[in-house]
């Protein structure tokens, strides 16, 4: 592993990286030497064993860390890889544009036969890669303008009969004074209302973080797909820790309690498809990740596009109505 990547290592990955480094060095020193070959093979086996034990037993908090990895692919990376001719459309026509959400029409380059080259509207949260960009994108935390822009374009897509692909990656809607003054809650609520009746298929993919109403505001539809290491919940683990434990120190416990991983959510019927990631996370092999997402999105698009619109809306409503676990004693 190159040294430069060390600064991006997550704490639980360090022991593995150290062992990998040692292995590399031994390989470099001992190329040809008979007696070293056994040791190299031995170490290589230990590396694989450790890799397996780390990545096959990721805790929920570790997955949250992977979902937030600074090298993880973001919405624009997916747009680059999965579509051509992306035409970005900006502004809510009321107040401003919000770079924390990007949206536009593009040709989806599918791999599933019967769904190869189709115009879609892509809507996604966008984070930044460096300090300047992060501030510009407000860490992927939208203001009301972002939701209103998304709502405007989704209605447009519905008018044009173009399916919608939503890519979720946000730590939450921005909790600021201006956001409140301009109606953050109303902006999100209005999108929920609109999206439930849009007369085109909506495919949602949680690619990184899916926190709270901030994610939901551009993220409900006919199929919910989720990357293996993404997380999705009603609140971020840190905030949950702060509210319920009255301390920021219980984020790991909160992550566990919230059951925010893809498998957790598939168990309660919220997620339809888990998209596998390369070992170590999407950033370790972005190309493989993109291919997996393309296949899964294409399959989902093909499936829902086969339905006539009224059936699609009825099934959407049924999905929305079905979520919830409670008892009802009618004896």
């Amino acid at each position: 592993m190159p040294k430069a990547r060390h600064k991006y290592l997550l704490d639980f990955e360090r022991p593995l990286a150290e062992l990998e480094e040692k292995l590399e060095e031994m390989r470099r020193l001992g190329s040809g030497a008979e007696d070293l070959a056994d040791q190299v093979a031995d170490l290589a086996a230990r590396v694989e064993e450790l890799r397996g034990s780390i990545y096959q037993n990721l805790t929920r908090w570790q997955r949250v860390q992977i979902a937030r990895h600074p090298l993880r692919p973001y919405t624009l990376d997916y747009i680059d890889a999965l579509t051509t001719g992306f035409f970005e459309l900006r502004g809510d026509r009321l107040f401003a544009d919000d770079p924390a959400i990007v949206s536009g029409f593009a040709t989806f380059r599918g791999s599933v036969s019967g769904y190869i080259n189709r115009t879609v509207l892509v809507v996604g949260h966008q984070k930044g890669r460096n300090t300047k960009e992060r501030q510009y994108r407000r860490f992927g935390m939208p203001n009301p303008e972002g939701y209103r822009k998304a709502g405007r374009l989704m209605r447009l897509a519905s008018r044009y009969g173009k399916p919608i692909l939503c890519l979720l990656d946000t730590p939450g809607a921005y909790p600021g004074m201006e956001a409140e003054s301009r109606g953050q809650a109303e902006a999100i609520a209005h999108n929920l209302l609109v999206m439930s009746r849009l007369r085109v298929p909506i495919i949602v993919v949680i690619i990184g973080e899916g926190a709270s109403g901030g994610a939901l505001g551009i993220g409900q539809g006919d199929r919910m797909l989720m990357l293996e290491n993404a997380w999705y919940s009603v609140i971020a683990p840190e905030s949950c820790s702060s509210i319920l434990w009255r301390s920021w120190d219980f984020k790991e416990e909160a992550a566990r309690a919230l059951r925010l991983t893809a498998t957790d959510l598939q168990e309660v019927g919220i997620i339809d498809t888990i998209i596998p990631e390369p070992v170590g996370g999407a950033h370790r092999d972005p190309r493989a990740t993109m291919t997996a997402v393309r296949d899964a999105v294409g399959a989902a698009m093909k499936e829902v596009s086969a339905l006539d619109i009224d059936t699609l809306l009825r099934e959407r409503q049924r999905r929305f109505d079905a979520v919830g676990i409670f008892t009802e004693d009618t004896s």
Partner: protein
Amino acid sequence: MAWFNRKKKGILTARHERIDVPAGHWVKCPRCAQVSNRRELDQSLWVCTKCEHHLRFGAERYLSLLFDEARFTQHDTDLRSKDPLTFTDRKAYAKRLRVASQKTGLNAAVLAATGKVGGHPASVAAMDFSFIGGSMGSVVGEIVARAIRRAVEHQLTLIIVSQSGGARMMEGALSLLQLTKTTSNLALLKERGLPYISVLTHPTTGGVTASFAMLGDINIAEPGALIGFAGPRVIRETIGQDLPTGFQSAEFLQDHGFVDAIVDRRQLKRSLVHLLDLILEP
């Protein structure tokens, strides 16, 4: 407080009468420190007679206040939370639920009922902050959604009285998706052209504001109610400065265009009936 005439499949027909509270119970106004006895407060609908501060008013009281002669039929009283995640923080969610039920006598943070409001048939859901902060989990979402569907099915006016800290964290993503469940049913109601009046009371924040509470055809708020998406503490921590007085108050929301009218609780029934008479003119 209520006499129940029959109970069948979660339906209660009740006639609520003013209870005779012993005058000896004293309550201090949190704003002006005026001390009133409970009988006086009951008469003023728990609005401080000195400073007009609106003290907490529970779901059952709102139902009695809004329905004509305090007569209504309650629905879905048998729904109960199930602790789907076996959630534990400093306390187990299962225990929180038990304690909340014992303390409040409620099964959920919302009550739903049908009856007449100013003679207009209405479906009303009223939330109750005293039950785990009025938070919305699977049960609240389901009861609200059914109250909306009931309005659609029987062509009723919908009134929802909100009072909530937001989505119920202890049900994780399941509670988040109650925003979807409630709003999608509202969309159906709106397509049918049925009126929906949202009454926002103190406090209405988080997922409830970001779903049905902000989506009234007409949004009415009680004076001084805290209404917002993010809580003030979160905003303060994010921006690192104190918030101006009145920020996120009902009056602030009205100034910014998100609330149609601010109505004193003592005028609420009269105002709603006035509005419904105008809208539902035959």
